[in-house]
């Protein structure tokens, strides 16, 4: 039941030292005042508390259990980060107040920028983008602006078939035409295809490395050389940086633009779908294009630099998601050089461990060591009449969040693959029992497929009817009243 359905006229949790002064509207805005909104819920404070407290328990989160959602890096979100980000010296600061009053925040942002530069090997950063896709757009707009100034005929962007959907969407939103590059039989970029496609109409290639099958792009040096020699730039989708920290740097590999998902690699919580933060780093020759403002430090004073004639402009109303940046800052400070390296090492070891344990039941497409995640196939199970979806739903009954399923969707992965990313936060026991559960389910698939077909059983709702939702399109309380 929604809060709207729980409403009772006259109830209230409103506790402010004033009441509606009807004269105000009549006196000051006679023509523009709307009629009172009559359909908001009216509830007492306890109604509200129970409503949302119970909703919160209907959600599975990292704090509840194992969340091996591939490509999403659902690692532990340290509680100290939340405490720091709730500091009123940060939360109760107006973005337009003098830089002099915000030296602490600006210092934090500047130090974060410096850390990210070191971690990625890039020369400058904007902290403004709100999420990964926003970062991609920012990065591609930078490339677009650069090419406009230098080589305007370059209107295409190459994107591997394995790429996350945001990559092509962002490129296209940044005004580019998207050309898909197929993968080779080892899961990497098909070099021959690339060679053919990489001509003087191509502005850039967008790569995720490790890519979305969890494999490091072996030919990255050759790709970089090829693309650069032919006048293109390399964009790095940093969603998978969790595999590489302290091991190897995208900047050193030849990438010109990178975005990072702080809500993945840098431990800020996902919040059921954001807010995140996705700083974008660039090599020096692109720094002039960064969106304004840019945090700078001059003579020990921190400032927001808006005077950048080549800037692509603004990506948001202010400067980005400061409170999210603060969490990532604290995380990086606390992990330090050894900790970040230990993080990537552990993430990689864990992924390979899970892969090895599950391989006999869910074969990986390539028998190569993976980086931070592994893609496994459930193709064989159709003979028992069950699909990957059924396996995923059944995992819920065992108390786990399913891996990412049906992604990436390109050959030879077109169907029935799951992408498992344990992250460094998980212990051996957790992974062991998760694998045990999947193995048990693979057994159940043969012996009692109905158990999978009707799963999940132990959740607050059973499988939700997507067709019903699409057909009825009830997307607000108002729609319900209508029906």
């Amino acid at each position: 039941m929604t809060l709207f359905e729980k409403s009772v006229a006259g109830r209230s949790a409103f506790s402010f030292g004033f009441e509606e002064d009807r004269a105000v509207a009549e006196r000051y805005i006679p023509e523009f005042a709307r009629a009172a909104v009559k359909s908001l819920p009216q509830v007492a404070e306890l109604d509200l508390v129970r409503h949302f407290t119970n909703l919160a328990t209907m959600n599975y989160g990292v704090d509840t259990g194992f969340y091996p959602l591939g490509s999403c890096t659902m690692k532990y979100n340290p509680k100290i980060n939340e405490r720091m980000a709730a500091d009123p010296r940060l939360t109760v600061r107006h973005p337009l107040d003098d830089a002099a009053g915000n030296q602490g925040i600006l210092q934090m942002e500047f130090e974060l920028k410096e850390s990210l530069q070191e971690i990625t090997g890039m020369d400058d950063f904007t902290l403004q983008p709100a999420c990964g896709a926003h970062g991609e757009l920012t990065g591609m707009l930078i490339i677009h602006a650069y090419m406009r100034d230098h080589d305007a005929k370059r209107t295409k962007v190459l994107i591997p078939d394995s790429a996350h959907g945001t990559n092509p969407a962002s490129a296209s939103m940044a005004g580019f035409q998207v050309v898909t590059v197929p993968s080779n039989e080892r899961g990497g970029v098909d070099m021959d295809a690339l060679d053919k496609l990489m001509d003087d109409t191509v502005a850039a290639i967008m790569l995720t490395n490790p890519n979305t099958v969890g494999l490091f792009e072996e030919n990255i040096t050759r790709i970089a050389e090829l693309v650069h020699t032919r006048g293109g730039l390399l964009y790095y989708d940093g969603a998978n940086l969790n595999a590489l920290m302290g091991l190897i740097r995208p900047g050193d590999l030849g990438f010109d633009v990178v975005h990072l998902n702080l809500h993945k690699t840098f431990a800020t919580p996902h919040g059921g779908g954001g807010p995140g933060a996705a700083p974008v780093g660039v090599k020096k020759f692109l720094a002039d294009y960064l969106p304004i403002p840019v945090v700078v430090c001059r003579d020990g004073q921190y400032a927001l630099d808006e005077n950048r004639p080549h800037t692509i402009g603004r990506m948001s109303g202010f400067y980005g998601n400061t409170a999210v940046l603060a969490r990532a800052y604290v995380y990086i400070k606390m992990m330090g050089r050894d900790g970040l390296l230990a993080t990537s090492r552990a993430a990689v070891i864990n992924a390979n461990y899970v892969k090895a344990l599950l391989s006999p039941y869910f074969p990986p497409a390539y028998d190569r060591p993976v980086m931070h995640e592994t893609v496994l196939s459930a193709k064989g199970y159709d003979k028992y009449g069950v699909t990957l979806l059924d396996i995923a739903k059944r995992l819920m009954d065992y108390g786990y969040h399913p891996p990412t399923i049906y992604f990436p969707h390109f050959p030879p992965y077109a169907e029935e693959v799951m992408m498992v990313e344990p992250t460094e936060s998980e212990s051996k026991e957790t992974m062991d029992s998760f694998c045990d559960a999947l193995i048990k389910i693979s057994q159940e698939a043969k012996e009692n497929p109905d158990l999978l077909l009707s799963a999940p059983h132990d959740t607050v709702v059973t499988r939700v009817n997507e067709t019903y939702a699409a057909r009825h399109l009830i997307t607000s309380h108002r729609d319900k009243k209508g029906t």
Partner: protein
Amino acid sequence: MQSTGRNKFSFIPATGDEQQAMLQKIGLQFDDIVKCFAGNSCVEGGLQLPDGLTEDQMVEYWDTMMSRNSGPRKASLLGAGAYMHFIPAVVPHLASLPGFVTAYTPYQPEISQGTLQSLFEFQSFMVELTDMELANCSMYDGASSTAEAMLMAHRVKKADRVLVAATVNPNYLATVRTYLEPHGIAVDVVKMNGDGRVSMEDLESKLSVTACSAVLVQSPNYLGIIEDLGAIGTIVHRHDALFVESFTEAMALGLLKYGVGTGADVVVGDGQSLGLSMSFGGPHLGVFATLKKYNRDFPGRIVGESIDTKGRQAFVMTLRAREQDIRREKATSNICSNHALNALTAAVYLGSVGESGFRALACENVAKLQKLVSGLEATGHFTRVFKQSPVFNEAVLASSIAPEDMRSRLAGVPVFPPLALARSIVPEVQGMPHTYLICATEMLKDSILKQVLGALS
């Protein structure tokens, strides 16, 4: 990993021994794995970052750093896109419950009903408040939502030109330009009238030149003034463009007309005022509401009500075929993660203040600004510009007090000083060379107002 035999990193459970055991079990060495780096050398000598801090050290470091900010204030004369409002304790309490905070986007509805239902409720609130038919479950912020609205209008109308009122928040305008630039869409600005509102004549004439995909108007506008959206809407529709209404101050939704009644095709804006702190500019909350006829065109995620296999009410993401993960380069937007937790926060906030409470808040904002303005005018150092135009909780005042003087006079008062506006934006006032955009919200209690007036007298 350490002499004590204790793991050094509290966020990584595996001990060195365990990692060895795992690698042994699967017959790999870590070096085997990184062989895939193929000649690409590892970071030599490691990252040049300091050693990690422990939690107690971190708290100390943070504390020293944050003490370099001037402290939090009790009210703000500064608005212009970020507003200081009272946040009832119940709001962060509920919005920070771990089930909400540590979940991902609700791809698996059976174990994500908490997020899904909250977002459905957020959408419901937005539909009611914007008076539109459909709202997505959030965008990043007001500026990027506005830019996305213009892109949507372009998808629908295809004309490579849009109009933006001169009275739109300049950062919103800049964002719109950034988003539209690569598509070769011209962004023309509609002039402001002497009353601080968009000029109907200029609008009419600019619309008559060539086809436009959209007209963007903000109300209350950047100068705090309430635009006549209904009248503008009529003109816009006469010229077959989409009418995009925008707001930076969501509190205005409690009192002002938006949406279908004023001819809007899209209502976009920022929901920060709905229970979210300013946090130096983010994360805030992008609101995007539109009409059902655009339900294949709008950007962002949306939750629909459905049923489970037992016929029980259940929620699920719907209209997914527009999205990047399915449509890739043909998606209606690249947006993936949005600002879900902030949408949930706004839903809690609106649930908490309730129907009449939200309106009371809106009225109080209007009243507080009026009190502040008349108080300031009574000092003789201020006079309102655009006197005849209706305002919500911000207004432009000319003043004899220069910005530096303003700051130092207000140094002892717990408020953020008002925004000094570039002179060029507004008409000159004799003897009052400085111009301010001044904001008042319900936080400006009478005791603080008195201090403000005292300091500026």
